[in-house]
Every structure is written in C-alpha cells, then in structure tokens.
C-alpha cells in the first residue's frame, strides 16, 4: 500500500500549515488518534486555499497533501466531484482498479487504491477529505451539503 507517491507526499507534504481561511474544522479518528485541523478559503466558488495541520500516520498525512494539490484552484463543483470519486475509490474494498477516466480525475490520489483493501486504514485516508467537506459546508452555508460520512 505504500506507493512511492504516498511516501513522497508524507515526507514532503504540500501546502501544510494553517493560513487564513473562511472556516476551520478539527477532525479526529478516535480509534487511532489521527487528528487534523483544516481551513478552507473560497474566492467565490473557487477553492482559493486549503491549509492544514495535523498528526497521524503516513496515509492520513499524505492524503491531506494530495487533497491540497488536487482541490486548490478548482471550482467547487469540480472539487466535489473529485472528493466523491476519492470516496468511492476508498470504499471499494480493493474492488476498483482505477481506469484512465478515474486517473484523470484523481491524479496522484489513485495511489491510494491499495489502501482501500485495508478497512482499518480507509478512515485515515479519508480524514482530511471529510474535514474539507465539513469545512466547505460551514464556509458556504447549506448550499454545500453538510453531512459527513
């Protein structure tokens, strides 16, 4: 499961650190103690920034870094599509072999396909993504869905 890409993001996280934002959330995975504090900044419907601080395993750290790469600069609708696709992949229990279409959407994040085979680690990979969804709902109000999975 430790793809080179994942290790790279873990060792050299992108966009780490807390910067100015419209909303901040703090998410915890109680079973393993992984934590993340995440802020989103919107410029209209564009994801202007996603900044974060956290502690946890390589999977949760790398996943936050990948998220930053993928979502910053995207339109909200596009970002939500990426989030949904990542969620789908992670919940696939190793059953989805990412195809070209998925790779186009997820880029580096397809490296997490292997993680989906490990139920205990799926939550780690999703931590920052759930935090982003939640923060977005707070920043933009009820227009974006609020529910976290």
């Amino acid at each position, binding site marked *: 499961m430790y793809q080179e890409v994942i*290790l790279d993001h873990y060792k050299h996280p992108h966009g780490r650190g807390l910067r100015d934002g419209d909303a901040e959330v703090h998410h915890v995975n109680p079973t*393993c103690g992984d934590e993340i504090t995440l802020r989103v900044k919107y410029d209209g419907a564009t994801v202007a920034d996603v900044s974060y601080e956290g502690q*946890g395993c*390589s999977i949760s750290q790398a996943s936050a870094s990948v998220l930053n790469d993928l979502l910053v600069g995207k339109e909200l609708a596009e970002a939500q599509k990426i989030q949904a696709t990542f969620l789908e992949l992670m919940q696939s229990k190793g059953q989805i072999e990412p195809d070209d279409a998925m790779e186009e959407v997820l880029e580096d994040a397809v490296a997490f396909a292997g993680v989906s085979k490990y139920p*205990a680690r799926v939550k780690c990979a999703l931590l920052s993504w759930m935090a982003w969804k939640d923060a977005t709902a707070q920043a933009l109000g009820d227009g974006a869905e609020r529910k976290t999975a």
Partner: protein
Amino acid sequence: MTQLPGLLDTEAIRKDFPLLDRVIHDGKKIVYLDNAATSQKPRQVLDALNAYYEQSNANVHRGVHVLAEEATALYEGARDKVAAFINAPSRDEVIFTKNASESLNLVANMLGWADEPYRVDAETEIVITEMEHHSNIVPWQLLSQRTGAKLKWFGITDDGRLDLSNIDEIITEKTKIVSFTLVSNIMGTINPVDTIIRRAQEVGALVCIDASQAAPHMVLDVQALQADFVAFTGHKMVGPTGIGVLWGRQELLEDLPPFLGGGEMIETVSMSSSTYAPAPHKFEAGTPPIAQAVGLGAAVDYLTAIGMDKIAAHEHAITEYAVKRLSEVEGLRIIGPTTAEDRGATISFTLGDIHPHDVGQVLDELGIAVRVGHHCARPVCLRYGIPATTRASFYLYSTPAEVDALVEGLEHVRNFFG
C-alpha cells in the same frame, strides 16, 4: 539460534499450534506478537471442542439422557479444572461468563444492586487506576453515573508504575470497592497487589482484580492474592473465544444479588416471584458457553502440563532479551518499565515520529503481527501525551528468533520512512 536460560522447548510447543504455521504475504511465515490481544490455540483445545460437539453435545443440567449427563459432566468438570488452576477454595466460586468484560460488569452490577454492607451508592467511593483496560473503567463509570458514587483513581509514574504515594487519600473509609489490573495490558507492568489490598482491608473495601493479563502468564492463586473477586478471559490463555471467568469469595456470592436473569439461574419460578439457585448458577443465566468452558478446561490442562512457573520463566527470559534488543533500535522509546523487573512480556513503544499505524503496517508486510493503537487503555496514552503505541507481546511459544525478527523489522521501518 539464541539460547537463553529458562526457555521452554518452543520447537515442540509450536507443533501444537496450527496457526503458527500460517504463511502470509507470499510465503512469509507468521511471527505472531499480538498475544496480549489474544493467544493462539493448541490442537488439544480444538480437539476438545470437536469431541464435545461430535460426541456429547447437549444442553446441560436437568437432563436425564446420556448426552445431557455427559455434557453436564464435561461442563462442570471444566469448572473443577479452572478452580484447581487458580487454587480456589471451592469450585462453587467459579462463575463462567462470556469474557473478562462481562465478569467485571457483573461485579459492578452486583454491588450496585446489593444491600448493605456492600451497596455502592451516592455516599460511597469507587477506586480504579489510570492503567486499566477500558473494560475495567467503563463499568465503574457507568456504576458511578447510575448510583452517584464518586470514581477515584491512582495515577501512573513516568516509568509506568502505579503512583501509590497518596494511597491513604485515594482509598478511604468511604471506599466500597477497589478494582485494578494485576498486569497492564499496554505496558506489561505487574502491580503491587499486597500494598493495595492491605490498605483496602484497613478501610473494609472489597477488592476486584483484573487478571486478564496475568492468568495466561503466571501462577494465579486466588487465596494467596487475598482479593474478593478475580476476573479473567479464556481467549488470552490458549482457550476459545466466548468464555470468561469470575472468581468470587463464597460468602459474597451468597449475599450478592443476581445480575442476568433467566434459565439455569433460578431455584423456582412463578409468575409473581422467583428464587435463585446457589452460586455459581445464580450468576449463569441461560445456556452457558458449554463447548467454550470445555475448551477452557482443555486449555488449563495444557498450560498446567507445561507448568505456569515454567511459562513465567520463559516469558521473563524473552522479555529480558526483548527489552535489551529493542533499546538498541534508534529512536525507540519504551512506554512502561524499561527493565524486565516486575513486568510481563508485553512491551509498548514509540519509534521516532513514525506513527504506530505505519509501524504496524510495514511489520505486517514482513509477516510480523503486532498491535498498534491505544490498546483499550487510552488514558495511558493520554498520560504520556502520545496518540498510540506499537505493542509487541509474547507468550509460551515465542522465541528469541522472533524478537530478532521484530528488531530487524523495526530497522526496516525506520529506513522505509526515514
């Protein structure tokens, strides 16, 4: 191969445990170092389970047919074996439950519903420690919430021992029950039973000992311990899942009220009222875990044949070796006692900044099974300001070679994430 004084003949013992031949991840033979979570089962225990189901399976008690007589004799025979294993003064003091957690909840509930002088209520106090497994915390939190009793606890020192410096303030005349673990499931610490019991007896408090991590690994003599209740669980002592034990002093079991109601635990039932059977049956509602008790009996036979003192010596030798080897790993910090004195063969540690999940996962890829997380003892992690630990725990079949494999594996982990 490393030879240490006091080791058991693990080559012979390992042949009894089919799972230890398991091969994972393309040909890696498993190195099973998760014994504090659960132990593997010898052929002898599986044979006892199969023989029970294939030849004697029936519901116990009250039956006049051959199978019912046999099943009852096997089930009650297992009680005799467990009673002998813990040196109980009477077989009737041995209650079969589903696991140690049920045993501990049983004690908490008996005391909550008891009459004086045992009753836990808003005027009284309950004492536990910061080192407990959640199963010896949550039942007391629930009891405290539901009765208004105050919950107090002993803290932990920097080197993973109970801090008993304020024992006279913690255990007071108001204390009704002191419940603590004999051996920590996260740090391996062996606690000073005598000191605590002496103080509890001074103030007339009952003492409950969680022996879940002791019964599998050392001689357990409930008379020598001088406690009032002792709880443990079958699956950690080469027995099946689904079976636990509560030992309790006979007078107490006679006086205390039942917990679960139903078949088997009654003397006579009418619609308006019921009377209860004497202990242990009073506390065993419904069809008991019959096959599992039989399996636990076989487990106890297995351990006894090897000798609990020999098992303890073996584990002590392994622990000494493991503590030494582990402290050679750069960046490794043992959480808990750092020598083999007064500790069991369960060793928790952190490895630099590498998250335990990553440590465990990479070890797994090498075929080494350890546990990572808070090990159902989250207050210990909070105490040391860490989110989790990696825990390696050994047993009678563990070898120095497995310690070496672990140490090599940890070096690999360091390089991998370095």
